[in-house]
C-alpha cells in the first residue's frame, strides 16, 4: 500500500543524509575490498574454516533470534525495551542446568550398566524436562517482571519504566549471583549429546564437525519460531496481541482484556528466552549470573536490525548477527577478541543511521 505523504513533511536532503550516504559508500567499498582480499587475493582461511564459522554463526544466530523475538514482541506492544530480557534468559539457562544436574544423580540402572544415571539412560526425556523447566521458570519470571516492575508504570513518562527495567535487570543479575554464586558452571549434557561431538563432513582435506547440540539448537529454534509465527498470525491470542499493538484503547473497546494480553505477551517472550537459555547452555556449555547480558544486547541489536516490532525481521536479524559475529573478525581482519565490538558497532550504527531497521516500518520521531 502506498502511503500518502503530505508535501510539506517531505524533508529536503540535509547534510546529515549526505554524510550518511558518503559514509555508507566508503564502508561498502572497504567491505568489498576486504572480501576481495580475504577470498580471492590472499585467502587466509580455507573453505573448511569458513564452513565452521558459518555453522557456529547460524547456531548462535538462531539463539539470538529467539531472544530477539522477545524484545520485538514486548516493544511492539508496550513500546519499551525490556532491559531485563537477557536476564530472563539467564534464569532459563539456570533452570535447565539444575534439571541436568539433578538427573545426573538419579540412578536408573540398565542391564548393560548398573550404575547408569537417568540423564544418560533417557537423554530425550532429560532434554525435554530441561526445556520444560527452563521455559517455565523464564515464563514465570517474565510474568512477574511485568506484574511487579512494569505494569504499575504503564502511564508514567517514558524514562520511568526504562529505569525500572534497568533496575530489574541489575536486580536479577545480582540476585542470581547471590543465589548461585559467582563461579561459572559447566552444563552437564547427556553423554549422547556431548558438546563438540557430531557428524563429520569432509570439506577439502579436513572434516568439519556438525555438532549434535548445534543441530538440536538450530532445528528446535526454527520450530519454535514457526510455532510463534502461527500463534501470532492464526490464533485468537495472536490476533488480540496484534490488536493491542495497534491501539490499546480500541482493542479494549473491542472486548480484549489488554492487561491479560500484555501479561501473555510477557509470558511468551519469557518462554522464548527460556528456551534460548537452555539452548545456550546445551550448546555453549557455560552458565553464570552474567550470561544473559551480552546475548541480551546482541539480541536487541538483532531486533533493531530487523526493525523492532517486526517478528520475521527479528529472526533474520538474529541469524545475520550470528553470522557477522563469527565471520566478521575474519572478514574485517581484526582480532577475535573484538567480536563483541563488531556487534556493538552494528548496534550503534544501525540506531544512528537507520533506526527503523532493515525490514522496519517508518516509526514516527516520537517512537524512535
Amino acid at each position, binding site marked *: 500500500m502506498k502511503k500518502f505523504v503530505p508535501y510539506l513533511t517531505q524533508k529536503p536532503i540535509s547534510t*546529515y543524509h549526505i554524510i550518511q550516504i558518503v559514509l555508507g559508500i566508503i564502508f561498502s567499498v572497504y567491505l568489498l575490498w576486504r572480501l576481495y582480499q580475504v577470498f580471492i587475493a590472499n585467502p587466509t582461511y580455507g573453505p573448511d574454516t569458513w564452513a565452521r564459522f558459518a555453522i557456529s554463526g547460524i547456531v548462535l544466530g538462531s539463539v539470538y533470534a529467539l531472544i530477539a523475538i522477545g524484545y520485538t*514482541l514486548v516493544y*511492539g*506492544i508496550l*513500546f519499551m*525495551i525490556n532491559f531485563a530480557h537477557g536476564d530472563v534468559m539467564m534464569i532459563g539457562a539456570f533452570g535447565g542446568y*539444575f534439571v541436568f*544436574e539433578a538427573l545426573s544423580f538419579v540412578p536408573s540402572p540398565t542391564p548393560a550398566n548398573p550404575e547408569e544415571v537417568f540423564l544418560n539412560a533417557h537423554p530425550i526425556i532429560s532434554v525435554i524436562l530441561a526445556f520444560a523447566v527452563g521455559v517455565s521458570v523464564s515464563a514465570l519470571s517474565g510474568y512477574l517482571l511485568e506484574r*511487579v*516492575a512494569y505494569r504499575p*508504570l504503564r*502511564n*508514567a*513518562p*517514558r*524514562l*520511568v*519504566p*526504562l*529505569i*525500572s527495567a*534497568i*533496575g530489574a*535487570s*541489575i*536486580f536479577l543479575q*545480582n*540476585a542470581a*549471583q*547471590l*543465589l*548461585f*554464586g*559467582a563461579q561459572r558452571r559447566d552444563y552437564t549434557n547427556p553423554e549422547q549429546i556431548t558438546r563438540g561431538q557430531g557428524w563429520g563432513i569432509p570439506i577439502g582435506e579436513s572434516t568439519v564437525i556438525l555438532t549434535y547440540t548445534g543441530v538440536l539448537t538450530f532445528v528446535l529454534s526454527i520450530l519454535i519460531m514457526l510455532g510463534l509465527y502461527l500463534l501470532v498470525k492464526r490464533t485468537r491470542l495472536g490476533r488480540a496481541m*496484534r490488536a493491542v*499493538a*495497534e*491501539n490499546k*484503547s480500541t482493542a479494549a473497546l473491542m472486548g480484549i482484556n489488554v492487561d491479560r494480553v500484555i501479561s501473555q505477551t510477557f509470558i511468551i517472550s519469557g518462554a522464548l528466552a527460556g528456551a534460548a537459555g537452555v539452548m545456550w547452555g546445551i550448546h555453549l556449555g557455560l552458565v553464570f549470573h552474567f550470561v544473559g547480558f551480552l546475548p541480551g*544486547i546482541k539480541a536487541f541489536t538483532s531486533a533493531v536490525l530487523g526493525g523492532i*516490532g*517486526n*517478528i520475521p525481521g527479528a529472526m533474520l536479524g538474529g541469524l545475520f548477527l550470528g553470522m557477522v559475529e563469527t565471520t566478521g573478525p575474519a572478514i574485517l581482519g581484526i*582480532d577475535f*577478541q*573484538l567480536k*563483541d*565490538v563488531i556487534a*556493538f*558497532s552494528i*548496534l*550503534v550504527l544501525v*540506531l*544512528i543511521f537507520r*533506526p527503523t531497521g532493515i525490514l522496519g*516500518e517508518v516509526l514516527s*520521531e*516520537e*517512537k*524512535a
Partner: protein
Amino acid sequence: MKTQLRNGLQTGLAFWLISAFLFLIGFTDTAAVLFGDIIHDEDLRPGFGLTTGMVNMLFFLGLLGIWAGARAARAARAPGEALAAGIAAGLVHGLGVGGLAWLVGTLHESKVRMSTYLAQLLPETIQLFVLEKAPAEAAAWHFVLLLATGFAGGLLGFFLGRPGWREAIAAGWRQLSSHAGSLSTLQRIRASRAFGPSLAVLGIIVLFTLPLRLDQYWNYTLGTVGIYVLLGLGLNIVVGLAGLLDLGYVAFFAVGAYTVALLTAPAPHKLLWSFWVALPIGVLLAALAGVLLGIPVLRMRGDYLAIVTLGFGEIIRILSRSDILTGFTGGPKGVLNIGGPQFMPRLFSNEINFLYLILLCVFLAIFITVRLQHSRIGRAWEAMREDETVAGAMGINTLQYKLLAFAIGAAFAGLGGVLFASRNQFTGPEDHNLMVSINVLAVVIVGGMGSIPGVIAGAFVLKGLPEVLREMEDYRIVLFGALLVIMMLIRPEGLLPSSRRKLEVHQQDPNQPDEPIRGRL
C-alpha cells in the same frame, strides 16, 4: 470478606517469596548480625534453647510477618476483615516459610551439601534458620511466629491505617510544627536574610574541619562519596535537566582517569607530567568526548539513546582491556603509580588534603550547576526535557543545547575520573565497567532527578551508607537494582526532588497520550 481473604492469600504468597528469597541469599544471617549490632544484646538470655543470633533472626522474620499482615489488611473496613486478611496472610506466609525450614532442615540432616548449588546456604546459615532444632520443630516455630505476627500485623495495620488516626496524627504534627515555628526567636532567625548564607557558611566550616577529625578510612569514604557527588551532578545535567538517559556515562569517567594516568604515570609512556597540567587536559578531553558522542546520537530519544550510549560504554571497556591497546593504555593490568597533586611540596599528598581538593571540586561543580540551572541554558534544557518538539518551536536550538548538556556532564565526569584515578594511584578497565554508570544513575534517580540536594543525598545514601553498614556489602548491588525499581514505583521524583520535577511526575502529562497511536507486530 472474600476480597480480604484473597488479599491475604496474595500478600502471604508474595511475602513467602520475599522471605524465602532473603533466606536463600543468606540475608537472614546478615539481618541477625545487623540487629545484634543495633540492640547490643549480649546480656539477653532467651530460653527455649535459642541463642541471641536466633532471636535477632526471628525478630527480623517477625517484622516481615507484621508487614505482611498490615499490607494484607490495607483494604479492610472492619476489625474482623483486617483480622481475616492478616490471618490468611500469616497462614500462607507461615506455611511457606515453615515448609522451607522443614525441607532445608531435612536436607541438612541427611548431609546434603546445598552450598554447591545455592552459594549462600552454608551450614551456619542453615543452623541459624532452623534454630538448631529438628526440622519439624523448626517448621512449627516459623509457622507460629509468622501466623502470630500476621495476625498482629493485620490489626496493627487496620488501626494505624484508619483515616481517623491518620488525621489525628497529621493534626498533632501540624500543631507541633506550627507551635515550634511560632516560637519568636526561631521564627525571626528563619526569616532573617542572613539565615541561608549563614547556614551555608556553617555547613562549609563543618565540612572543612571534619576531615581533620576523621581517620584515614573515613576520609577515603568521604572522598568516594564526594567523587560520586561530582559524577552525579554531571549525570544530573544530562538526565535530570536535559532528559537524555545516558548509560555510557562511565566512558567520560574513563577518559578523565586514563588521561591523568597516561600523562603522569611512569609506565607505559613515562611522560611524568604534573597533575595540575593533566587535570584540565583530562576535563577538556572528557568534554570533547562528550561532544563527539553527542553528535551522532543527537536525533535519538529515550530508549534508543540509552542503548546506544550503553553500546559506546561497552565498546570503550572492551577496547581498553583488549590486546591492541595494551601498549598504549596498559591493557587489562591498568596503569600504576599515577601522579598526585603537588602544590607547595606535599600539601596535597595525603588523604585529608585530597579530600579538600575533592570538596573544592564539588563546590565548584555545585556552583556551576546552580548558575546553569537558573540561567537561560538551564531553562532551555528543562523545556527540552518536557517536550522537545515544543521547545524547538519556541526557538530553542535543541541540537546545540543537547551537545552542551553532554559536554558539561562529560566534563564533570572527567573531573571525577581524574580525581579518582589520581587518588587511588591506579586505574584499569575494571574501574570503568557498566556498574559505575549504573551506580551514578542510581545516585541521581534515588536522590531526585534535577535536584542538587537530591544528588548529594543520593551519593551519601548509596555510597556512604553501605560503608556504615559493612555487613550489607554483599547485598549492595542487588539493593541498587531493587531500589531503582522501588523508587520508580513509589517515588519516581526521588528523595529530595526539585519542586518542578515533583509537580511533573505527579501530574498526567497532557502531551503524553495514554498509549502510542500505532504499532505493528
